[in-house]
């Protein structure tokens, strides 16, 4: 939902970043306001996943220039956990398996961390169970997944649903979904998309990073950005995604 009067959540200016000495982002500009849904598209290697990891604070990436203000804070001065507590969320492209840590224990620990940050009471395991039983409906997850180790033995679709469950529990102001649609069959895609849609409010925003237009049929973006060679080379409405689907990326690369 576009409302130019709504609050700016994220403002990225001329962001440059490198990994292992190789410059990947070469000047990215992006403004995200509350209530908006953005899609960042591009071919493999265009820098779109790097962009999401840099925003979340992945230690392998080094910011070499530019700035990112998130809710009035200079994002790159914050540790990854401080960014999370400030309301930034990254749904991982490849969710990590953590044997020995139960899903419910992690969710409760993360939830209570946020509660403390917001000056609210922590929940004990019983209270949290009531909350989580509601939240798992968002992603139609079987309660048995709560007792299992985080992502261990989960299918690709189950892992992605688990990421969205974490988003539902943490209630971020800005969620970045990194290739959340990859590896999903059509049923899982629908469930994940429904989950994300149900979490959208006028006060939060979503940035989807994706290669395919398919996801955008389910989560309709207000803005579509095309990234190429470390820059955003074109911004348009949802119709831009359809054009990309029909024409591919080459015409834009030539234009850039």
């Amino acid at each position: 939902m576009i409302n130019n009067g709504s609050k700016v959540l994220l403002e990225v200016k001329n962001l440059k970043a490198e990994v292992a000495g190789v410059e990947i982002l070469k000047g990215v500009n992006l403004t995200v306001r509350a209530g908006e849904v953005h899609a960042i598209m591009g071919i493999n290697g265009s820098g779109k996943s790097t962009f999401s990891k840099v925003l979340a604070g992945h230690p392998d990436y080094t910011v070499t220039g530019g700035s990112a203000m998130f809710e009035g804070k200079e994002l790159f001065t914050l540790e990854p956990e401080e960014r999370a507590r400030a309301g930034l969320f990254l749904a991982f492209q490849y969710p990590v398996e953590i044997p020995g840590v139960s899903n419910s224990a992690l969710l409760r620990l993360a939830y209570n961390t946020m509660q403390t940050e917001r000056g609210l009471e922590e929940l004990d395991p019983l209270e949290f169970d009531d909350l989580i039983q509601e939240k798992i409906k968002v992603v139609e997850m079987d309660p048995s997944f709560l007792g299992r180790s985080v992502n261990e033995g989960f299918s690709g679709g189950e892992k992605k649903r688990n990421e969205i469950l974490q988003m539902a529990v943490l209630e971020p102001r800005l969620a970045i979904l990194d290739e959340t649609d990859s590896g999903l069959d059509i049923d899982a895609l629908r469930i994940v998309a429904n989950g994300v849609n149900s979490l959208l409010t006028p006060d939060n925003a979503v940035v989807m990073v994706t290669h395919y237009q398919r996801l955008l049929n389910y989560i309709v973006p207000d803005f579509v950005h095309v990234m190429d060679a470390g820059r955003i080379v074109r911004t348009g409405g949802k119709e831009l995604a359809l054009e990309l689907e029909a024409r591919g990326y080459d015409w834009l690369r030539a234009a850039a």
Partner: protein
Amino acid sequence: MNLTKEQCFEQLLLGKSFKSESWLGPIRDKAGARAQALNFPTARQDDWRLTDLSPLFQYGFHPVDSYASVTLADIDSLLIPGSIRLVFVDGCYASPLSDLKQAGAGVTVSSLLDRYGDAQVEANFAQHALFDQDAFAALNTRFFEDGAFVHVAGGEAAAPIHILNVATKRDTSSAIYPRCLVVMAANSRATIIEDYAGLNDGINFSNAVTEVVLKDDAQLQHVRVQREEKSAFHIGHCSVIAARGSVYTSTALAFGARVSRHDLHVTLRGEGAEATLNGLALIGGRQIADTHTRIDHASPRCVSRQLHKCIADGSAHAIFSGKIMVREGASGTDSAQSSRNLLLSGKAHIDTQPQLEIFNDDVSCKHGATIGQIDADALFFLKSRGLTEERARNLLTHAFAAEIIDKIPVPSLVEALGRTILERMNGDHVGGVSR
């Protein structure tokens, strides 16, 4: 105190004399003579090459000459609800703290001293934990005061049997000699928890010996928890003899002591016997924890499984040496061993030595070892969910340890140990910020 190694050993040899049963007296004498001849192991002995005992040698350890009055409240945090309990204070049986009500028919749980006349005691005592090459076992056999005796004559013990050894001395450094004999009759089943703890930060030396005998088709879940004070020293030896079709499962944890060592020798002496050895050492600061295991496949078609984990923080040193022997004639042996290790600091040190000695074809022996650090991707993931670096590291460390702790078949103990570990990690011992 700053003794030499020789002075320290001389001091240990000044232990008490005991008036013993006619069968036991000669064993004590022989053990004393053997201890004197062997003296402390040296770094030239391969089995002790990596174990730095020098912190131990600085102290003079005295025989226990008086007994502290310990109340149930003092040991409350160590108790396992619903268990059959034997408590030893500084090596001496504490009847008022023990609870044998649930032992039931066919299950003998007792102080060793009270059962010197028992045929099982005489037949098995010092017959399995041999002291001819082991000075510490010899010292124990010479100077032990009392010990635990468990005999399950048949059927299943009604509750877990908790053998709790607490060290209390603070003003004088004491040498304590816990002793344990377990005899599982044919087809019997039991869970035994051997537990070593300290009640204060005294510099005591526990030198423990345990013997376990499983007759045909017996099954034993044997848990060992070494949670001594960080100032203490602990050397423990356990010998297990497993007969035909018996199933022995050990879960041994080492958390405490300045220097600790655990030798576990399992002999599969009967067709189709099975042994599972789970081990965990979780240490930090300047701690040293050494685990030496030996699984001896002495009969055909026996099975052994082993998973040992070391976690070392600070400038701690963890050692694992695991030998699998397959004797001539032990055809159809099936053995797998895995050593997995986690280094939490750049100054910590882990040595792992899998060893196979195979004198037979027709066997399957797999083994592997890994040493790693906290997984960077998992750490970033947890931080991205709002957890601090320290919390995330502790959670991952705890998860690594939990794979072993969760194998303990006593839920209340699993929970209590899980809490202990998290507390320790939040302190300065393991995974904490102060190194």
